[in-house]
């Protein structure tokens, strides 16, 4: 079971990474980031079988932080949208050198 769980975790993480790299829409990138977070959560849970309950505890923390992060992130995206009338990250490049 452990191997399958870790394989799924790796798969989900990779999907998340590819999503972050290829998507242009801020919402989509944000959801892919969440996917990566949850892939990591999955590996925490799976590995807690080997290393004790610490992994489970970490997952609870991660989810809490992720929830807060989701709230802040969405708020920023909405603010950007109000300002720029788009959430396409290619158009949001004010900080270039």
């Amino acid at each position, binding site marked *: 079971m452990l191997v399958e769980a870790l394989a799924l975790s790796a798969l989900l993480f990779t999907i998340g*990474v590819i999503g972050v*790299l290829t998507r242009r829409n801020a919402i989509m990138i944000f959801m892919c980031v969440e996917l990566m977070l949850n892939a990591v959560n999955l590996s925490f849970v799976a590995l807690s079988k080997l290393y004790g309950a610490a992994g489970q505890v970490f997952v609870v923390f991660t989810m809490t932080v992720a929830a807060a992060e989701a709230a802040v992130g969405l708020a920023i995206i909405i603010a950007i949208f109000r300002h720029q009338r788009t959430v396409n*990250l*290619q158009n*949001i*490049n004010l*900080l*270039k*050198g």
Partner: protein
Amino acid sequence: MNPALIPEGAHPLATTVARLVWLLPLLPLLGFLINGTLAMLGAAKIGPADPSADNGHGHGEAHGHGDAHAHADHGHDDHGHPPRHKFAKIVSLVGPGVLVAAFGLAVAIFAAMRGVDMEHPYVLTLFSWMPVGDLNLNATILLDPLSMVMVMVITGVGMLIHIFSVGYMQDDPGYPRYFAYLNLFVFFMLILVLGGSYPLLFVGWEGVGLCSYLLIGFWFSEKANADAGKKAFIVNRIGDFGFLVAMFLMFANLGTLDILGVAEKAAELPMGGVIATAIALFLFVGCTGKSAQIPLYVWLPDAMAGPTPVSALIHAATMVTAGVYLVARASGIFSMAPVAQLTVAAVGAATAFFAATIGLKQWDIKKVLAYSTVSQLGYMFIGVGVGAYVAGVFHLVTHAFFKALLFLGSGSVIYVMHAAYHATHNHDDAQDMRNMGGMKTYMPITFYLMWTATLAIAGIPLFSGFFSKDEILASVFARAHHSTLAEASLLGIPGSTLLMIVYGLGLASALLTAIYMTRMMLYTFHGPNRTGEAERPHLKEAPWIMTGPLVVLAILAAFGGWLNVPALLDAIGPVGGLEHFLEPVVGANALRTTLGEAPHLSHSTEYVLVGTAILIAVVGITFAVLRLKPAALVAKKDSPAATGFDRVLENKYFVDEGYDAAIVQPTVNVSRAVLWKGFDAGIIDGLFVNGSALLARAFGWMGSQLQTGQVGTYAWVLLIGVITLLGAFTFR
């Protein structure tokens, strides 16, 4: 180290007042510190004249601004007396006071020295100065008859000139600064003549150069004065380079820089060897700068931009004779190098004659005296050049008397001329002899005193200049016939021929000296007055504080010859006082090159020589009196421009112009094109300063290009970085 040197405490002078000799330079230094402090304290508080404060003074007051016509502090609508400096009273006491004290001490030391056997010099070690490897230099004071003579001249004549300055400079806003510089000068001059090693002598040598620069440019608000100061400083640096090279050569070849040590080691060098010749010639390069000989004499006439007492003290009596002192001091080396000696004599003779011809046609009274000084310095170098060190130093002493008198006398004339022009707001030249004339009516005392000095410098018998000049010429004549110099040769010219040419030039210069000095006196004091109707009532004798020192100097100029009466005239006094006094210092060296076993000149020859000299002086003065017509002269503004050879002489053979075209302008151009535009602007500013800025900007630009603003790009970079790191840790 030096067997000639007996231990410090064992010297007979060690128990006398001479052990206080270190106080000599310290006294003027103290004066410098006090006056300098006062100058700085007072500088900020000198404002423009308060018109309500000096209403009572009116027009007639004399002003002490001397040569500075357009001095910033007295514009021409300022009728009254400029305010004296608030510290003028203290400065008038301290400035000349330290010199009086120093002179008193010098006299006491001199008296002590007369009472003991001075076969060995008295060396006083003050402190260890430069203990570096093989070089172990102590700051030592070398007191021997030669430095004693110089100290007496410096403090004595210096004291008189300081007193004169009180009158001459009293109304100058820079009064304390003036005395600070003058005191500092005396300090360095005493270091120069008392220094026991060449480096210490060099410290004094440079110090007097600095003071000369400061005092030439004393009225620096006028560009010409500041430029004259710079010229003097730069020309002197060229000479000092020679002095430095000579010191390097001494240390490299003789292993010591001590004056006595060098003299001792030099005696072991081969006669006429390349080392002695090189050292002597490089030392002489230094002398040509400091003592204004061809080719470096050009700064001295320009140095007349300074206050006239400065010209008297620094540029006539003391500093410019430092070169003569140096040759006499290094006589041990020079007498080993006949070629160098012949060079010195030849350059001296050429300078004496050349400067005398220029002096014939100068209109500025101080310029006449300046060229006269250059010419007389040439005489001194003839003397020390042929190994007649006593004669050279003797002429140095008498020249200090009569030339200081001439300069101070001309200073008095300029002072009243300037005061007269100032009172009537006339901007004519107060120093041009064409604007003077008939001054004997207005300044009778100065008139007689100046004639005394003129007769002395012209070589009229029994005046001081006669003795010293005649002794130099006789020495040259004697050495032309029998001496090591006569057997040596310079540039293929046999020494005997060269020395006869030197003798001829010396005679010719004596003739010219008599002519130009008489001309100066005729144009200044005789004939009708050309100053101007309005100014005439303002012409009057200068105050006694200025005339008093002149009287003392006149007595010295008249009777200074008795310091060293020639054997020929044993009827008039004790023979050869100075010669006996200086015997321990230069006697042996002089004999080495000179007459050897041969007898001195026969008396009949000497009578002929003396007769020739007298004849020449009389002919010169008579010629000038008969030929020159002061009555025909008109004021400067009405005078036509000179033509022909007169023009060449009036413009000093265009030497300054030639130097300007040959040396100054190329230097300026090369400096501008290569050093400024090329190196400074191009390499330093362009490559280093702007280049490094450009480099930083280029790197910054490259870094900024990484910041695209695209979050996706950053994510890719992050991913690649993570994979690289993971890979690196995994497959390590």
